[in-house]
Each structure stands twice: as C-alpha cells, then as structure tokens.
C-alpha cells in the first residue's frame, strides 16, 4: 500500500512542513504512521488524508490533546488518529500549537470533514481549553457549566489552578450545557 511509503508521504505533503515517521503499535506486523505538523497546517493535511469523496475513505478514530507546556518547545499537541475503512493502514497526526502568551490555544476544526469530531472537539475544549475555529457549537460536554478550569497537566483533580489561558475557562463557563 503506497500510503505506508514514508518518502512518498513526505514528498506529497512537503509544503506543509510535515515530519513523518513509523510508530510501533502493539501489533509488530502493522505500523502506524506518525506525522507531526504545525497546528495551522493540521486541517489541510487531514483533509488530504481523508480523501475527496463525500464518504470518507479514512475514519477518524480519535482526537485528543497532549499538554506539553512544560516541554521544549512548549505548547499543546492535538492528536488525531485515523485509519482506513478496513484498517489497511493508520495515521496518527500530531498538530502542534506553540505556546504564545497573548493568544488562547486554538486550531481549525475538522468537524466538517468527520461529524464524529463534533463531540471530540467539544471534549478537548472542555478538558484542555483548546479552541476549535469553525466548530458550529463549541461548548462544554462533560463538565458542568460552573466548572471554571481545564484539566491540563498543571491543574489538580479539582481543575485548579489554571496556569494560563484564564480567559478560555471563563468564556466556556458562560455557554452552559
């Protein structure tokens, strides 16, 4: 399957500044392709991987966030896990949102590509305070409306204190469930 040809993948997405590597999974015979991409290019890359058809040929298995605010470079990784319809190949796309003092962390929504991202992005917004640009209804999903903070790596089990991006928690708490 050409989808697993790393050089071809690198060449096809060279304009997006993508780093491509194999990532071992629990199954030694199959590999997941790990692609790291700047956050602003993540949606373009995902759109290309999804395919043009009305019905996606690639499934969105999961979307989650890894807090790397204490790492170097500091920021959030939004992780998308994709697989072809009957699992011939799998991708894991890490969209990196660098730390910037003035902006709330945000990335383009993929809910128009896969409707299943609607709740996944709401969950990531709820628990990590990541904004998804273009999401039709970005409001809390799991936590109550009065829960002020996110659950990033520096928050305790009660969700406090929030290290930064304080505006994010406030904007979400007004939305209600």
């Amino acid at each position, binding site marked *: 399957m050409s989808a697993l040809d790393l050089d071809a993948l690198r060449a096809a997405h060279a304009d997006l500044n993508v780093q491509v590597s194999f990532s071992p999974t629990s*199954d030694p015979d199959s590999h997941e392709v790990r692609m790291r991409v700047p956050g602003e290019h993540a949606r373009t890359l995902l759109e290309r991987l999804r395919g043009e058809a009305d019905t*996606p040929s690639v499934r969105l298995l*999961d979307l989650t966030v890894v807090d790397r605010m204490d790492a170097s470079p500091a920021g959030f990784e939004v992780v998308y896990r994709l697989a072809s319809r*009957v*699992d011939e190949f799998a991708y894991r796309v890490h969209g990196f949102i660098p730390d910037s003092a003035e902006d709330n962390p945000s990335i383009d929504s993929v809910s128009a590509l896969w409707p*299943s991202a609607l709740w996944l992005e709401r969950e990531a917004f709820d628990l990590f305070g990541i904004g998804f640009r273009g999401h039709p209804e970005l409001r809390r999903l*799991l*936590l109550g409306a009065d829960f002020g903070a996110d659950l990033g*790596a520096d928050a305790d*089990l009660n969700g406090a204190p929030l290290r930064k991006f304080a505006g994010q928690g406030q904007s979400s708490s007004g939305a209600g469930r």
Partner: protein
Amino acid sequence: MSQTPRTDQNDSLSSRLGFPETTIEIGPTHPAIRRVMTPVGGTASFIVELDDDRITNLEVDIGLGHRGFEKQVESGSWEDALPYVSRLGWASGLHAEIAYCLAVESLAEIASPDRAIWTRMLVGELARVSDHYSRLGATMAAIGLRDAENVANAGEELASEALVAATGGGPLAGFNCFGGIRRGLSEHFLEGWSKQRSLIDDELTRFGSVATSNPTCTRRLRGVAPLVPEDAIAWSVTGTALRASGISADVRKDRPYLAYGALEFDVPAGEQGDDLDRMLVVIEEIRQSLGMIDQCHKILSSLGPGEVCVSGEVIIPEGEAVATVESSTGELAFFVVSDGVGLPRRIRCRAPSFFHAQVLPTMMVGARLDDLLPTVALMHLVSAECDR
C-alpha cells in the same frame, strides 16, 4: 398483517388536535432508563422533541458520570491506573484492562508469556459473552418481552459465574498486570468449563425460540433506527453496530492482537443496520466467542501450569504507544505517552460508547419514542467509558 403505516407529518395527531410539539427529558434517573440501562450502567439523559410519538429532534446529554478518569490516572503511577481502568465498564472493563496493559507493554517492550496471552483471550471472550447477554436482556426489557429478558439474564448469570471461576473475582478482579496476568486459571474452571459452556449454549437456544423466532420480537425491531454504512463510518461507529450496518470490520480479524490470528472464528455482519440486525449480530458473536473460548481452553489445558507473568521490575521508557482491542462495546483503544520519569504524561482512552451516544440523533430522528430505549440498549452505552 402489516405494520401500522407511519403517519405523515402534516397529518399527525398533534397537528390535527392542535397541540404544539412536545419536549420531554428522559433521564438521567427516569425509571424507564433505569430499567433499560441499569444492567449496562447508563447515565445519559435524552432531551426528546416529539410530534405525536415521532421524534423530531434528539439531544443526548452525557457527562453526569464523568469522574475525571484521564486526569485521575495521570496523577499516579502507571500501575496505580489499573484499578481505575478496569472500572471503565462492568464486564467490558476487562477489555479496557487488556488494552491498557497492551499499550504499556508495547511502551516497555515486554512480551507476555504464552499462557498469559491465551488466558487473556479466554477471559476477554467470556466477558464479551456476559456483556452481550446483558445487552440482550436490556433490549428485551425495553420492548417488554419479559420471558426473553429472563432467558438473557440467565445466560449472563452463567457467563458471569464462569468469569468469576476463571479470574477469581469477576470483571473487577484486577486480573491483568504489566507483562501478563496475576494468576493462572483455576483447575475448578478448567474442569467445569465444558458443563458450563453447554448451559450457556442452552440459554442461547432458548433465547432463539423466545426472541429471534418470535414475530412479536422480530417485527418490533425490524426497520427500527437504521444506520447506513456511510453514516457509521462518518460518525466513527465501531463494534456490533458497525458490523450490523454491513461492514465486517473487527479488530480481532483486521489487526489481530494477542493471538487472535491463530483462532478460527467468523465475523458476522448485518444488511440493514437496524435494531434487529444489531441483535442478530450480538447473538452470533456470543456463539463465535464460545467457540473461541473452547479453542483457548484446549491450548491452555495442553500448556499446563507455569509462568503467567514476566518477572522483574517494569521500566517504562520515554515514548508513545497505541493499543486497540475489540471490546464488547466496540473498538476500545489506549493512547499512552511517557516521559520516562515514572509518571504518565498522557493516558487517553478511546471509548466506543462515546461515539455511539453521539450518533443516536442521526438514527432516531423520525423514529417513534418507544424505539429509543431498545436502540439505546443495542448501541450499548456504558456510561463509565462514555463519560469517563
């Protein structure tokens, strides 16, 4: 005899009598929901907009059972997470435990002994039988077929007994550890399996006569809440619901983990993706699982007693790993990230119930209100993994 024709929207009872559309909130503590969802532990609530008894809009509200699972497990060591992981479901918690252990073992590059691999498959399939029976029981309760419900509950009871005999404490026994399992199967289980198996099988035959060959049941479920393959893919539906829609995707076949590649089994698939197809897929999977347990039992009997877990300290280096298993609820995966400092950086559980709760409005709009509960039961929302 034909089904009552679906009422045209303009000719509905409410419009003829001049009633406005009704909005009702079902759950999270509504008795009907408890009746259906207690066996599978649901706490979702449904805000249903109705015209006559037709659902015109449905909002699924989850989160009441949110326990901060991911935050909780990231606050302790890798081993500390295990008891929380097994509580991601009742019987299906065992699948979560296996997935989590596989992910961590993949990080630490540990290979479990053969005995542990075959035992994990055996208890996993037993948990699937138990969980599938509980789903059938919940479905029968939702459509009011009490005799079929009792048969399914009897089957669940028998499978749970076998699971307790095998693991020493049912699904929450803390059976798995990194590098294998805590103890081998008891003689009591190995000797008693063939008898217990025939009892479980008998309940399946009995269920066939009271449910699958009973027109009251089949006509009630046929054509209800169909899910077309395109929607199933777009909404990331997995497990029995995906297979009922005609796509025979199963992690055990497509990306075999443990030793599933060495087992002989079929992946059943439906055609119409409606409630009846979903129920038939569940029934056939119980049959297939029983066959798989037989194969594991044979291999384990020939292996005899011996090492079931790798010895020595488990050191988890820096890295990332994903492990996916076919849980009784669907495709359940753990994505783990380690910095190599002993504490996890990230433990993410991909919970199939989350996606199945999300797709419900797509399936239910246009259906009747009393179709909601059997569909919820067959989509198998387990709140512990849905809300985490």
